[in-house]
């Protein structure tokens, strides 16, 4: 028997109450076109969540809606049970959401160390050392302007930057884009470490196999709608997902 309270099943209510991020009925429109429709996602503390979907499925839009770079036409976004849909991006970031944008977008004229420092509101020196421990390749380039870094180093820097304020939720948007398989491993391979440190991760990836291998749960987006979600292992085994993303 299902217990229903205030129109919601109790099990769902419990999830909502304990969820770090809880999105319901999210709709985002670009002009007249709906980029996301009725999206519902829940992320628990310490959970690694993969967001799968083809190019144009709405993964980046969902990331931007969570951090606040695009406005939701409908629906609710709760972080720590508090609605954040009307807050500016910087307010959301300061509440504990780290954002690593698609295409890296490091600050080109700032040095590596400066790129890290601007994103930190705590002990800059300590957090910078942590990032250099996580990505040793960056330590050697700490004084170089970011535009001089290789693509892989820039991606590490972008991830590091999004971790500088010790977020409880990290939004990683396509970190493997344009990277060699080796570098992709180097970057995405850090996700379990980050999750183990207590930060939940929402990882948007076209490389589904890689994403599923480092996450606990996955959602599949297709033309702006969540078409499947469940434990990563189960989705990896699902025929639909295999057909769509894993090349058979």
């Amino acid at each position, binding site marked *: 028997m299902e217990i229903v309270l205030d129109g919601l099943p109790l099990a769902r209510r419990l999830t909502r109450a304990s969820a770090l991020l809880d999105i319901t009925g999210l709709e985002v429109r670009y002009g007249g076109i709906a980029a996301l429709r009725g999206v519902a996602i829940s992320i628990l503390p310490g959970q690694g969540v993969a967001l799968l979907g083809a190019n144009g499925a709405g993964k980046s839009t969902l990331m931007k809606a969570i951090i606040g770079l695009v406005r939701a036409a409908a629906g609710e976004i709760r972080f720590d049970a508090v609605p954040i849909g009307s807050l500016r*991006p910087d307010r959301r*970031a300061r509440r504990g959401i*780290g954002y690593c*944008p698609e295409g890296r977008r490091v*600050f080109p004229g*700032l040095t590596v160390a400066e790129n890290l*420092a*601007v*994103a930190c509101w705590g002990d800059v020196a300590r957090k910078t050392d942590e990032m250099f421990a996580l990505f040793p390749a960056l330590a050697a380039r700490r004084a170089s302007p970011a*535009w001089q870094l290789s693509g892989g180093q820039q991606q590490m820097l972008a991830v590091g930057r999004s971790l500088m304020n010790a977020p409880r939720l990290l939004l990683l948007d396509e970190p493997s884009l344009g990277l060699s398989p080796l570098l992709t491993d180097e970057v995405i391979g850090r996700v379990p470490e980050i999750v183990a440190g207590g930060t939940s991760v929402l990882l948007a990836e076209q490389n589904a196999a890689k994403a599923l291998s480092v996450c606990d749960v996955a959602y599949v987006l297709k033309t702006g709608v969540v078409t499947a979600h469940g434990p990563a292992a189960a989705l990896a085994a699902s025929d639909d997902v295999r057909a769509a993303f894993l090349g058979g």
Partner: protein
Amino acid sequence: MLALQLLFNALALGAAYALVALGFVLILNATGAVNFAQGDLVMAGGYGGLVLARMLPVPGVVLLPLLMAGMAALGLMVALVAYFPLRRRPPEAVFISTIAIGIILQNGTNILFGPELARTPALLGDGEFRWLDGVGGGLVVSAQSVAIIVVAALLIAGLHLLFSRTQFGRRLRATAQDREVASAIGIPVDAMVAATFAVGVALAGAAGLLLARGFFVTPNDGGNYMLKAYIAVTIGGWGSIPGAVAGAALIALFEVVFPALPALVPALGGPAFSQNGATIVLDALILVILVARPQGLFGEASKARA
């Protein structure tokens, strides 16, 4: 001796122009919009110095921090009135609104102070040092010129420290380079943009106080300073801070040293070295720079971004 004198004059003029160009480029970087009121804000700084001097009979160097604080407040007002309401419109909207601010400043100073030439108090005093009188006219170094160079150098050094050593300054730069990402990593970009207007306009005001002693000020002076800033930033690299300083120095050299070359080297002469010729040569040089190096002399960062 004449060469030394001219180089010194160029240095003093270039130092003041550099402050004008820096204020311009800071706002350009933070907003992506050209602030066409920058020249008129320099002019307003001159009159601001005049008003302060009437209230407080102290040397200009004491008035400078007060003036800069007042101009910073004016910068916030410019941001609130001319930038924030229009920031989601095409950049042309901000061009027009800053032009409007310039016209308001021009007419406002005309009503308040009249159209006559005015001048601000000296930074330290009106003394001058003379060396080697009789040797090719000697070298005359006015206290005002020395003070301009020192004050401008301190302001530029202070700006450099602000931008490289403080979180606030680094975040201003981050905001200028990618506003969307800056806000997504927690930087309150609107406050940063407003602060940039405050700093940029404070620099314009400082330049106004420095320039309006030796070169006077009238309500119509803004257009000329605007042109200097624009040229300096174009030469140095659209958005480059060291480039703006170098561009300002180059303009001053072309105004002061280049047209005097025939007096230094008798073999040189002809229309190219007239005062107007020098302007034409500088303009031609700008064209060459734009064709050969479109990013300007110091435009590396922006090149990497493109």
